[in-house]
């Protein structure tokens, strides 16, 4: 953040000695982490490194076999799930919606943890929905069925649904995976807006390292179910760490737009001889912008 204000959020999220997995297969064996409050944390790593597993455990979708996830210092498994849902919102990787559901209806269902059978829908619920839809810019399509929307619009609608929960913590599992580049940036910019406007704590899993550096305040790099490096982007994204985590040789240069670390994969078929020998500033900028545009996304390799 540019102007470091005191975070007004009090909620905290952490994991302590966490072991978790699916069925008999344990993915994460012993992991402890503190999610910085009021910041954007990005979890990165190769496929099957356990980054989604960690996110799901933080969201209490997976029950740890050992260790605990701590929400406000209390074990998240001990807190009633509906109470958790008023503090922590979640956007799964590929959420499903009933056929024909409209934008406003879907976003409205985000109010579930805030309403009771006895205390039915009220004006404050309409207000929360309106606010969530305004900040995600989907108010103008309130009556449209979500099947008719573009991928980027649909993702914004799902984010709006999570926002309608009015939680201070928001977890997102690969929110940009099925989107084209424009929509990826649209969603990531939106997340920054949401973080800045209300000091929301945001945790997301991303594949693209350059986007992770650009949008994350705090990065967590994972390999084989353990955290390899953690800290701000320039601490985490170094040539050594990327080599270790992804097994890919890269050069890390400053992002010409943001100054954050930018990863340029080397690959097996590229050598210095193939590229123009003159390393003019123009050529460097061109290569950099190509990488920034996702031409060389590490996840594609």
């Amino acid at each position, binding site marked *: 953040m540019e102007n470091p204000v005191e975070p007004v959020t009090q909620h905290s999220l952490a994991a302590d000695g966490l072991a978790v997995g699916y*069925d008999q297969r344990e993915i994460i064996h012993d992991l402890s982490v503190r999610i910085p409050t009021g910041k954007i944390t990005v979890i990165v790593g190769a496929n099957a490194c356990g980054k989604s597993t960690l996110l*799901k455990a933080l*969201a*209490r*979708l997976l029950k740890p076999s050992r260790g605990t996830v701590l929400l406000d210092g209390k074990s998240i498994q001990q807190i*009633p*799930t*509906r*109470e*958790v*849902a*008023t503090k922590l*919102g*979640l*956007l*799964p990787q590929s*959420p*499903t*919606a*009933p*056929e*024909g*559901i*409209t934008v*406003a*209806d*879907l976003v*409205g*269902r*985000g109010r*579930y*943890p805030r309403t009771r*059978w006895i205390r039915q*829908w009220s*004006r404050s619920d*309409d*207000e929360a*929905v*309106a*606010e969530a*839809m*305004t*900040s995600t810019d989907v*108010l103008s399509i*309130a*009556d449209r*069925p979500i099947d008719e929307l573009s991928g980027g619009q649909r993702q914004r609608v799902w984010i709006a649904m*999570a926002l309608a*929960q009015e939680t201070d913590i928001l977890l997102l599992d690969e929110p940009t995976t099925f989107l084209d580049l424009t929509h990826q940036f649209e969603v990531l910019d939106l997340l920054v807006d949401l973080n800045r406007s209300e000091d929301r704590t945001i945790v997301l899993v991303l594949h693209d390292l350059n986007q992770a550096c650009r949008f994350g305040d705090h990065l967590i790099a994972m390999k084989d179910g353990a955290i390899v490096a953690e800290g701000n982007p320039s601490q985490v994204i170094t040539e050594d760490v990327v080599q270790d985590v992804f097994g890919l040789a890269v050069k890390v240069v400053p992002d010409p737009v943001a100054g954050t670390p930018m990863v340029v994969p080397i690959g097996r078929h590229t050598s210095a001889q193939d590229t123009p020998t003159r390393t003019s500033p123009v050529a460097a900028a061109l290569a950099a912008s190509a990488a920034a545009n996702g031409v060389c996304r590490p996840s594609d390799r």
Partner: protein
Amino acid sequence: MTAEAVHVIAQARRARQTRSLVVIVVLAVVVFAIFCVSLSLGDFNIPVIDVVKTLFGGGDRATEFIVNRLRLPRALTGLLVGTALGLSGAIFQSIARNPLASPDIIGVTYGASAFAVFAIVTLGLTGVAVSAFAIVGAVLTAFIMYVLAWRHGVSSYRLILIGIGIGAIATSITSYLLTKARVEIAQQALIWLTGSLNGRDWSNVRSLAITFVVLLPVMAFLVRQLRILQLGDETAYGLGLRVEVARLGLIVVAVLLAAVATAAAGPIGFVAFVAPPIARRLTRSPGPAMITSGLLGALVVGLSDLVAQHAFGETQLPVGVVTGVVGAPYLMFLLARANRVGSGG
């Protein structure tokens, strides 16, 4: 955020509610009309206006006898059975997020049938005893399905596949029992298996009414959770729903509704299967559309029974024959469409 934005949201919500309300009122009127017509027709035709008068306490003694004593139990049974099937189908299809998941496609009604046929053929039972066996069969089948589908929670997909498998087993048991039976007994069992409202009396109405009194409040409570469950397990967890508890509660309600309906009138096919999709189309509702589904179930059974009773002159068919003729093409359409769009439903 502006007041205008709040207005847009409130407006959109009201528009959805209004449409559902209009559909419900229209359907209720249609169902009542069919109900009255079915009470007016028979060996001795009574003008519909006299039927309505009689229902509300007027009318002479002869009409009252025919309408209230002779015809009302049957019509009411049809009405309640149809409603129960429509509701049960709406719950199952919404839980599974799949239009194939209705109690008459997955094993529940087949299990009820196998037990009922066992009661008729092997134990020589009739009437209430057969109904009791049918209920036990439905509940037991559902229990086995649920246990077999359980692996750290029940996935909809596993539930449907296992349900279809168990349905096939139950059907083969039924067939085996029928081949072992004497012809007259087998005939009696076959009529039960088609689903029929013939000779239904107040005892059927009573057991159905009790079921409704008990289950409707539970259902009203669970519908809110069903709407969240429709968003998929992970999103539902994220919204603070105790997914497994909610799903189990809903399955229990849906199974009991299907079981009691089947016990009262036999396995009237395809009603639970076709009513909810039509309801959702009419209300354009992405929700479970419970009330509309219930009304449409009543409408389908009522109309089918009218056709079965009166459209073929002297021959009176069991109501299940007609619902089958209506429902089977829809099943084929659904499978063809699922194949084409590759959605599996």
